[in-house]
């Protein structure tokens, strides 16, 4: 069953990931243009590519006595974490790396984002990025435990930590249907992990852009690319874990995977424009008092059903 991954997957994976990240950025630009009442909002579709061109040639700004090395480590970690988290997700039938502990690997790579944002916030020696870093650590404390329980619930339902097996276990019924709490918590925590949408206080405009306030030129470009890649990976993981993976009628598995991933990604991008920011001083309590017990209860129910 677990054959060797074909060589084309190694090439296809980064292309697919980049395309999804660009798609998310494009959709976000269009929604922003609609909200601000810009005439011809569809013209905003080219904004992300313009921004890439602008950042490539932009001169770097420097803050006073920055720790450039730590900052760059932070920035690159963001991209690397997103890519490494993505390698265990099936492109169609098979992922690039079919690990027997795929879910744990995925979670471990995501946690690297904590270090990434903290270092990126610490590096510039400036108060707003530092504040952004603090905010993300608080956010991590709020979302990580519910997130882990949601992932583990899916693994429990399949009786395996291999993501391919989780997909296989959903041939009859999607996990999203019979473990809705875990699915909902996964989506909330995925948004928090990608510091996206309502959970974007680490890069909030109220602190002048937070972690990324002092980033300019290629540094900013890589950071932004990493952020969108992370969002894409977070959306893509919902498909094999909760939405039946590539299973579906008529169309081939890779197409179903792509369609479902794009749908989840669109919902996450759209949510950013519908909701005000969620501050962790308020959310922390809900996370620990409501989400954690709810996921534990969900896990208990799934455990009983599986037995």
């Amino acid at each position, binding site marked *: 069953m677990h054959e060797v991954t074909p060589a084309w997957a190694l090439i296809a994976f980064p292309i697919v990931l980049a395309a999804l990240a660009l798609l998310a950025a494009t959709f976000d630009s269009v929604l*922003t243009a609609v*909200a601000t009442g810009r005439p011809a909002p569809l013209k905003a579709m080219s904004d992300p590519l313009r921004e890439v061109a602008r950042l490539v040639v932009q001169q770097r700004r420097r803050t006073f006595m920055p720790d450039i090395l730590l900052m760059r480590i932070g920035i690159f970690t963001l991209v690397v974490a997103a890519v490494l988290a993505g390698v265990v997700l099936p492109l169609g039938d098979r992922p690039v790396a079919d690990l027997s502990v795929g879910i744990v690997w995925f979670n471990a790579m995501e946690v690297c984002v904590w270090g990434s944002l903290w270092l990126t916030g610490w590096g510039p020696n400036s108060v707003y990025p530092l504040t952004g870093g603090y*905010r993300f650590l608080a956010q991590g404390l709020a979302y990580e435990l519910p997130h882990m329980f949601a992932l583990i619930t899916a693994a429990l339902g399949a009786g395996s930590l291999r993501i391919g097996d989780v997909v296989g276990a959903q041939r009859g019924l999607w996990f999203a249907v019979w473990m809705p709490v875990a699915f909902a918590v996964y989506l909330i925590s995925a948004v928090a992990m990608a510091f996206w949408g309502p959970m974007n206080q680490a890069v909030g*405009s109220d602190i002048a852009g937070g972690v990324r306030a002092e980033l300019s030129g290629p540094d900013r470009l890589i950071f932004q690319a990493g952020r969108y890649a992370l969002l894409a990976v977070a959306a893509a993981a919902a498909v094999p874990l909760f939405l039946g993976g590539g299973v579906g009628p008529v169309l081939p598995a890779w197409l179903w995977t792509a369609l479902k991933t794009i749908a989840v990604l669109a919902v996450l991008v759209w949510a950013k*424009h519908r909701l005000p920011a969620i*501050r962790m001083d308020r959310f922390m309590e809900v996370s620990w008092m409501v989400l954690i017990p709810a996921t534990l209860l969900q896990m208990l129910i799934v455990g009983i059903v599986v037995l």
Partner: protein
Amino acid sequence: MGAPGGLRMADRGPDRDGLKLDRLHVPMGPVLRDWPSGLVVDTTLQGDVIQQATVRTVSGSGDQRFWDEPWLSAMRGPHVTRGEAERRRAASHLDSLGRLLGVAGWLSAAAEARRLRDRVLAAASREEAVRDYMRFERRVRRSRLLRWMLRDLGVIEEACRLPGPGGGMSGDVATRLGRWLTETGAALTAMDDASRLEDGEGPRGPVEDRPAEKVLAVLPDLLVGAELAAARLIVASLDPDLDQLRSVHEAVHA
């Protein structure tokens, strides 16, 4: 202790949890997104919690008071209709709402408030403005998430008698947001009133009293103990109009 790069190291002091933490001295303003332009709050931060705050302003150059202008002009004598003044009041509140919603991270609602503000100032008809405003108001009021994020922040006691829209600034940030929404609706409905403007009750309270001075006086106490995000929301919910402060020019002639 050394001074790396010629900068003094951060000193330390006890914080609210009984720990000893670095103190950073950080000015907020005069230029920040969705911030009353010209306002500077000099803060002492531990983490992102404000331990001390003092307020100063970067003095403006002119003595124009755009938002209070209809009322001031009516006092000087020329005939100003109530409708004109209400149009300015509605636009002023929509401007404040845009800023508060922007700080609250709800950029699409903030953009909608600003679009409405521009259209009201650009002589949109009453029916059209009221209709579009109602939709906006429903959307903002319906958001339980927003209310959850704004309540219990920056509570001002009734006894403070701080002048403000619709009778005062008392309550928390969510209350003040609600008051702006109500006042904007009322002002838009009265936009066609052709009777003569006779009172001096501007968007931010009696225009002769220069309410901004009183708001700035209570601001430091409200900010101490708040973290940066909450502090930004508190400032945005009071939205002092710094044009109301006496400019250097006026002070000389007073």
